[in-house]
């Protein structure tokens, strides 16, 4: 389908963008990579009155690696994936990014866009949750930092106010930290039917694609820190998952596969550690 009518403006700076969002009201939306928003517009599932394009704000494109990895909101997924510095500092992020969409979507898809869109089956929100990323957002009320867990409030919903712009996300550099990433999708690049992100030292277990948003499985994390066996950690992770269903899989299947994937991710993380 074709999109419904809307106004459009290209912001030239972060203050400019926030001012435009504030003026635009509830129905103004940020346009970043467009890989999630345009499909919604093209199916008329979203009817914003105004699109504020943030693609022409250079400071939002940054990919900076030193003691931490700091990624601007419009850092392109393809660029972050290709970055050797990011791979060295945060190999989990690089591995996860290879599963995000396809080469033809990663060239425009953004880090911030994926986080702000908050698709329950998306890899980036899950990874940031596991890595305890710190998201920076700016509004007319100033700048604030939101933890990844606070950012996502439900399916396609975040804590961001309508006049608030996600500007960057930062994660502490952790090149040696053992991790395991496992995802089940129907085809290469599809959204996950279920996925698991596991880190050790300290333990983090995140399940995505199963519930309304990615969640940390704290019982499983406790068991993992306690050196429980991978199967037991997985059982705890999958317990009481409030699973969604769609044409690809029902809730029981997703819970079951989450169990398998957490187990495999734990095994991989332990194998990495040696």
């Amino acid at each position, binding site marked *: 389908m074709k999109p419904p009518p809307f106004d459009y403006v290209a912001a030239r700076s972060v203050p400019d963008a926030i001012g435009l969002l504030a003026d635009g009201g509830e129905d103004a939306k940020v346009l970043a990579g467009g890989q999630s928003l345009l499909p919604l517009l093209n199916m008329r599932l979203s009817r914003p009155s105004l699109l504020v394009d943030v693609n022409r704000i250079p400071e939002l494109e940054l990919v900076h690696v030193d003691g931490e990895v700091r990624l601007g909101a419009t850092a392109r997924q393809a660029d972050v994936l290709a970055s050797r510095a990011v791979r060295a500092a945060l190999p989990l992020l690089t591995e996860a990014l290879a599963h995000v969409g396809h080469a*033809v979507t990663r060239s*425009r898809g953004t880090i911030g866009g994926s986080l702000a869109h908050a698709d329950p089956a998306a890899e980036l929100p899950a990874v940031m949750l596991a890595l305890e990323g710190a998201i920076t957002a700016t509004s007319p009320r100033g700048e604030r930092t939101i933890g990844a867990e606070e950012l996502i409030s439900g399916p396609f919903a975040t804590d961001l106010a309508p006049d608030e712009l996600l500007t960057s996300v930062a994660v502490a550099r952790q090149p040696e930290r053992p991790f395991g990433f496992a995802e089940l999708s129907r085809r290469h690049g599809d959204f996950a039917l279920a996925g698991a992100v596991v880190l050790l030292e300290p333990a983090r277990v995140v399940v995505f694609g199963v519930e309304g948003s990615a969640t940390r499985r704290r019982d499983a994390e406790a068991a993992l820190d306690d050196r429980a066996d991978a199967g037991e950690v997985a059982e705890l992770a999958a317990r009481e998952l409030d699973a969604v269903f769609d044409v690809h899989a029902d809730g029981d299947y997703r819970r079951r596969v989450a169990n398998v994937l957490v187990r495999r991710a734990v095994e991989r993380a332990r194998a990495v550690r040696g």
Partner: protein
Amino acid sequence: MAEPRLVQLAVDGRRRSGLAEPRLLLADFLRHELGLTGVHVACEQGGCGACLIRLDGRLALSCLVLAVQADGAAVETAEGLARNGELHPIQQAFRTKHGLQCGFCTPGLLLATRALLEADARPDEPTIRRHLSGNVCRCTGYTGIVAAVQEAARLVGEAAG
């Protein structure tokens, strides 16, 4: 601000312009305002790759870009691959290895192939298939396409010396 506005851009090296209201998709602007036939629309949700172009040097699905976003930009389509009438080595490879049948997915595939070979001059088969995961072909089953990309890698490598 919902009124049509002038969009000026370069398309395959030529200066072009046209009117676009904000909601007009770049794919429709290129095809219907500018009359290009080398961009095809098949899903309008980024799920098939038929509308693939290059925008300021990066791959872009033109059904997911607004025409107004391309003001001042350089757009490259598959129509710009041939030089002085001569087929690009990638195009030649697709021909000799039967990498196309109906041709609808072909322009997008050619651009995806060029991007792959720019990043990796000798990709192995799994890499080729993974890189092309966003380009749907219904006719070939991909066997001829993979052969074409491998041949293209060889030809491009030869040309580079």
